[in-house]
């Protein structure tokens, strides 16, 4: 009944991880390391490293990774399903109500007050990635002499291309990955 155990563990993670990726980490740790003993703490911290390095939400990444290591492909699918199912149902209900009532002027007014906050949240997320990209740390411990010139250049050029030519996001991200790696290889970092 290991599979069922896994499924319910991640069902709880999906249901209770309110507030984005990093809020899910302690929950996953609780379920996987403490309650079920499916992984050691060391394996778990490896998992977090890998999950951070790869695209996708941390909850899904860890669900797949844990499921795969514990019970193969079936485990991976079941764990991911478990951690997606609760939010899928909840958001369907929310979507239904949002699209039913969103044109009411009262609802509009309340929603309008939340939009500036969302802009601020996105801006803040962008700033911390920028700091991480250019200084390799957060903004409180960033120092001018740590500036990575290659990344700074790539950032500037990417922004210029986006503003001027309305380039697609995916091509800019992949392009900066390829160009940056080539530059570093030429500089002899590899």
């Amino acid at each position: 009944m290991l599979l069922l155990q896994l499924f319910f563990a991640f069902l709880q993670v999906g249901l209770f991880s309110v507030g984005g990726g990093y809020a899910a980490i302690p929950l996953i740790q609780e379920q996987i390391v403490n309650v079920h003993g499916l992984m050691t703490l060391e394996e778990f911290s490896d998992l977090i490293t890998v999950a951070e390095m790869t695209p996708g939400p941390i909850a899904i990444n860890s669900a797949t990774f844990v499921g795969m290591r514990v019970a193969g492909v079936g485990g991976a699918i079941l764990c991911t399903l478990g951690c997606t199912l609760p939010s899928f149902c909840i958001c369907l209900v929310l979507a239904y109500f949002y699209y039913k009532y969103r044109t009411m002027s009262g609802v509009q007014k309340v929603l309008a007050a939340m939009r500036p906050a969302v802009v601020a949240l996105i801006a803040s997320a962008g700033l911390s990635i920028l700091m991480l990209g250019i200084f390799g740390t957060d903004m409180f411990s960033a120092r001018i002499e740590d500036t990575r010139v290659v990344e700074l250049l790539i950032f500037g050029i990417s922004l210029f291309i986006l503003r001027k030519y309305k380039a697609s996001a995916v091509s800019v991200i992949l392009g900066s990955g390829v160009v940056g790696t080539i530059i570093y290889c030429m500089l002899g970092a590899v």
Partner: protein
Amino acid sequence: MNEKRQKLWILFKTMFILSSCTFGGGFVIVSLMKKKFVEELNWLEEDEMLDVTAITQSSPGPLVVNASVMVGFRVAGIPGSLAAVLGSILPPMIILSVISLFYEQFRTNKIVAIALQVMRAGVAAVILDVVINLAQNVCKTRRFLYIAMMIVAFICTCFLKVSAMIIIFVCLGIGLLDLIVSLRKNKGKGV
């Protein structure tokens, strides 16, 4: 029928591609979704995308999944939600399944580390591009309240590390107050 099937396919494909190259959390993919669905496909209004973000941020589960459910529902109902969610969870599943088989090599590979590091600069540029457009539109409302809320929220989340949930709920409260005040004013005028 055919048109609907095509919409589902585009939903799936878009989310699959966006999800494959999204590093750094939920707000990144929301910026990418905004760029794609609002600016390129014109399937959503900008306000809708912001509302969806606020709502999904305050519900449990990964932001990407939540946002996919809502955007998919808007575009093509429940099948749309399924298509979008499938698109957004398949890439991390495939990538992690492969990596879990030989993650020691992956973690210590230098080229992988460098590529991931420089891609952050590109991601940051994309987010800044989206933020500039969004902030301009908030300023265009010409309401002091909204502009002030944006600045205060930015300071709170960025420098004071207030959680996103709290910020959204406080703004929800301000919005309700705003609604009550304006209803009272209208009553006073006898409207």
